[in-house]
């Protein structure tokens, strides 16, 4: 790809998840322009649960530091879950959060019904795979779409070229690869006659598959069901220049299942990589090796850093 860099390049937003107020402040201080938070009552696989009052404090803390706050409301809602949802959205608007992230169309309907003014970001994870669908949600009120992690670089560039909404790409961290409404860990424990314990993220459960038993796929349950996560962490740091040339609007670092120290260091490395490429291609090339080393130094040994599907071919 033709490298521009330097003054011509637009700096993308750097977004990171936060599990609590402390992490939120620290990742912002490390260079995040925006943070993503939520509560599992409304959002999928949030890093930690923020009650409404904590969202208020988080928003104040972020805004005081010039950063934005996005709240995940991207669960799959059943009829009963709709109760209280309009009030929740209104409260988020009143708090002044900068965007609401949705996956279920019910949020679009309710936003319409209550005249919500907060921008909506579409994130149905694996379902966001083409620009026409992203533009469709744009016409329905979304200002941004989050690209599925199963796409390659060419597809992402093509999406950005044709998108009428902002495009967000995950550049680092774990991804969800399976979501069931059932309690699959609990069911297994019961099947084996064990007393089931809550299979929360804290239990650090994982599964392995026969043919690749060196790969550990984390698995956990919450009120939204069972989630299986990738065995590897995406790390696109070395290719950030390509994504910046493509003018991707937002880079997301997924910080769930990692501690604050790790997330702060990762945010800091991506911050410096973005700033370096904005300075020029040479600055980027001169720094990227060291920045990669910084990430490798803190990467858990059993979780390989990969480029995910960015350079992978898939068949069907």
């Amino acid at each position, binding site marked *: 790809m033709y490298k521009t860099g330097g003054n011509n390049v637009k700096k993308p937003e750097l977004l990171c998840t936060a599990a609590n107020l402390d992490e939120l402040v620290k990742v912002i201080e490390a260079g995040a322009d925006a943070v993503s938070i939520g509560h599992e009552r409304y959002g999928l696989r949030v890093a930690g649960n923020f009650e409404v009052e904590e969202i208020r404090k988080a928003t104040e803390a972020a805004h005081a530091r010039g950063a934005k706050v996005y709240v995940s409301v991207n669960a*799959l*809602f*059943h*009829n009963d*879950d*709709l109760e209280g949802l309009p009030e929740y959205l209104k409260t988020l608007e009143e708090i002044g959060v900068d965007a609401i992230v949705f996956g*279920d*169309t*019910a949020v679009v*309907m*309710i936003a319409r019904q209550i005249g919500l003014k907060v921008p909506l970001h579409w994130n149905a*994870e*694996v*379902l966001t*795979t*083409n*620009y*026409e*669908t992203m533009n*469709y949600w744009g016409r329905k009120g979304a200002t941004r779409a989050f690209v599925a992690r*199963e*796409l390659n670089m060419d597809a992402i560039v*093509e*999406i950005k070229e044709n998108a009428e909404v902002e495009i967000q790409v995950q550049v680092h961290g774990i991804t969800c*690869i*399976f*979501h*069931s*409404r*059932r309690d*699959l860990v609990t*069911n*297994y*424990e*019961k*099947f*084996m006659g064990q007393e089931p314990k809550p299979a929360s993220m804290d*239990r*650090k*459960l*994982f*599964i*392995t*598959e*026969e043919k*690749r*038993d060196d790969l*550990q796929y984390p*698995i956990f349950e919450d009120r939204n069901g069972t989630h*299986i996560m*990738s*065995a590897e962490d995406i790390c696109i740091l070395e290719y950030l220049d390509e994504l910046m040339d493509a003018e991707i609007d937002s880079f997301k670092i997924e910080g769930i299942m990692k501690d604050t120290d790790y997330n702060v260091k990762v945010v800091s490395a991506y911050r410096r990589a973005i700033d370096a490429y904005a300075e020029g291609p040479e600055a980027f090339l001169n720094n990227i090796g060291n920045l990669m080393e910084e990430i490798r130094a803190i990467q*858990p*040994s059993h979780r390989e850093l990969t480029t995910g*599907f960015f350079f*992978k*071919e*898939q*068949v*069907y």
Partner: protein
Amino acid sequence: MTEINVISDKKIMTPRGPVLQKPEVLAPAGNLEKLKFAVRYGADAVYIGGQSLGLRANADNFSFDEMKEATDFAHAHGSKVFVATNIIAHNEDLYQVDDFMRSLQRAGIDAIIVADPALIERTKQAAPDMELHLSTQASTTNWQTVQFWKEEGVSRVVLAREVSVQEIRDIKKHVDIEIEAFVHGAMCISYSGRCVLSNHFTARDSNRGGCSQSCRWQYDMFEELPQEEETIGQIGKTPLPMFNEQDPQFTMSSKDMCMLGFLPDMIQAGVDSFKIEGRMKSIHYVATVTNQYRRAVDAYFANPEQYKLNPEWMEEIRKASHRSLTTGFFYGTPTEQDQLYGENEDMPQYDFAGLVLDYDVETRIATLQQRNKFSVGDTVEFFGPTMERFEQTVTEMWNEKDESITSAPHAMQMVKVRMDRPVSKHDMMRKEKK
């Protein structure tokens, strides 16, 4: 039980509820022959796949010419044909959509089943008369979302398999739209569409038809315990297996859905279409399963108050099943009882052994087309769209030249068989697998 008034054989009325329309029995068909048998065995509608945009990349799938033949046949029998175009599209899939949809319209297809809004938008432009059904792949689980799609011009929503009977009732209360529900067959254990295990394990894109059913594979589960005194000195934390040597491994395999025993609940909840899964399933499966739902729905609408599940129907269903059965989410979140662990179940399996082409009332001899080997002395069963199933032993049989034979080993060979009871063209003969 609520008092129900029969208005006609297609409409009934409950005292407090609305008029209930007779629901459609919707069957899968992997090819033209299966489609014809699905219709003959009672399907009001059949869904199929085309050469692209569907989720069964490895199925036979229909060419546009075959679709034309399919709609001609189905329409002549008062049935409809839907095409599953329910991939989650990537950029490069979009270019073919307009032509594809125009071809479907020309082939007389009654509706498409679609999950990706990009395909909905393109179809509205390219084939404006095409009826749109929202696929279960869109994971629709609440009435607000159903209302949204209604306003977008979708005439029917296939609900997520995670929705309960009570939730369907509530959705119907809020939104006047056709609701289709999977009542029978294999199912995703994840929210449909929200799984990329195949992409990760086999580089096959599940949401474009490449699903390798990784959920049903065997896994080991471990718990990473906090580091304790005795483990210090080792690198990292010590994972503890969640299982013992003799325990079955962790897996995510659901039993198959079967709502045949609970059809009155589904009818009274207002489900408009009963969908049977299985575009990859055999002709024997499709005919058998479709026919039991046909019989049950007809029996209910003929006399709702006296309706009782006929155990014979369930027995037939079991003969076509490869897994044990569950009611999924219809009555609450499934438990470990609704999953399969360990070795495959040992269920009696039946082969489709022969198709009745003709029956001579005088000689009581049927002409069969062989579909699986059978021999003199075998116990076989005959069943058909309307006849009562019966069992008999093969006593005498002849080949095309009327020579007496003891066995029919050749695929599609014509065989004449002495019958205990009359049969008709399109009836089937099955035999237990040994």
